[in-house]
């Protein structure tokens, strides 16, 4: 969903903007920004939960 809303950005160029600093800008950016951040957050959170519920064993590291 976010992929549909969002416009891919090229302006980030070579400075690595941490995900945290982008999320903070969204939160500071007013209602619309907060909504986007919440959606992202919710999506992450719910996918994390569904992984936990599925109880799929993590692949063992091959090292």
């Amino acid at each position, binding site marked *: 969903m*976010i*992929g549909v*809303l*969002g*416009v*891919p*950005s*090229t*302006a*980030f*160029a*070579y*400075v690595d*903007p*941490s*995900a*945290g*600093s*982008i*999320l*903070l*800008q*969204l*939160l*500071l*950016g*007013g209602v*619309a*920004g907060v909504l*986007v*951040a919440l959606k*992202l957050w919710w*999506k*992450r959170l719910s996918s994390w939960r569904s992984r936990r519920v599925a109880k799929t064993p993590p692949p063992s590291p091959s090292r």
Partner: protein
Amino acid sequence: MSFDPSSFRDPDARVLAGGGPDVLRALSQDAATLDARLRRAGVLAELERDGLLIASQRRDDQLAPQGWSAVLSAPRLPFVSYPYEWSFSMLQDAALLTLDLQARLLSHAATLKDASAFNVLFDGARPVFVDLGSLAERAGNAPWGAYGQFGDHFLAPLMLEAYRGIPFQPLWRGNLEGLPVRQLAPMLAPFGLLRGGVLTHVMLRAWLERRTQHLSVDARREVRAAPLAPQAVARNVAGLRALIAGLRSGASSAWATYDETNSYDPAAAERKMAFVRDACARLGGGRQAWDWGANTGRYSRLLAEHYATVVAMDADAGAVDRLYTSLRGTDAARRILPLVMDAMDPSPARGWRGTERLALAERGRPELVLSLALIHHLCLGRGVPLDQFLDFALQDAPHAVVEFIAAEDPMAQALLATKTVTHPGYDAAAFRHLAAQRGRVVAEAALSPTRQLLLLAR
């Protein structure tokens, strides 16, 4: 054609090596297109006029290096300085300049793609945004990609000094990415939590960074692509500006009031001024002079009447800040560059392969060096041998004005009050003898029974 060793990070713009009167930059196709758009629309001219961006020209007479599209030129500033050499107000002004430029670019569908403090240099005591390669097209509804870097390079160091009274320069010097906000967070907790901007720009950001550091690649891409309306980006920039403009240094300074509180006899001070004035007149002035231990700049101002650039250095950041703010709006601001610099530990070469940021001595060739009321700090206070002090005074310039201060002088006595060591061989006769071994004594004067001045030629 080769590139400047400090210019390699930006794939769209690189500074060409060479020391001519202009700095030449190669631009990629994308950067050249943006430059042409902003130039055509008169945006660059407007930014130059308002002091937000260094003046620049397209140089179609210069062949772009292979793989590059265009060459830009901008005047070379007389002296390169780095954020860890700036006082609080200097870093603050550089931050405000960066934000003002960003605000203006946003209104022209452009942005700063990085917010490095190294984008700013000082021309005398005036900040100048020099990195023309930092300008980029603003992509649709993108947040400001350089906000995080702005926080590390500007906001965090300023907050540390404003809210905790801790000078930022040593930390900045220790890390060429400034002071990462996540490192500042524990320094401000718990009492700093209620200070302006701390909860959001520091605590919330540090928490979000911790929470998102293990995000998957997909999730990171999604965050990067998250839209933020241009007005919201502009509001954030305006909010940062108000926050930074309101900060004041909380660090204490031992020397900022020295000029009013020193025990100097006015007649001796006048003789000292006259000696320096005569020395400048005798040497005929020139391009550049350095003033070590400049304090609040009394002698730097005198030098500025004869030299095009005066680098006024002092280890006390408070004194440097006072000089910097007192220069605002004056004619001398064009010529005097105040810097926080300890003669015992001048800025070394730093960064990638040790060539990214230059050591102090690599950045200028002064014609005259002033070392007034410095000798007792270095020799009595820090144990520098007298002969080495004279070597130091003459190492960078063909001429030096040095002041000898005997151990019996009240200012030297104040330094020695808590010390038990003795300083055999530290006396006026030894000083005069060692000086004459190293150079020619062009002029000399006794200011008081405990102070004498020499003009030395190497």
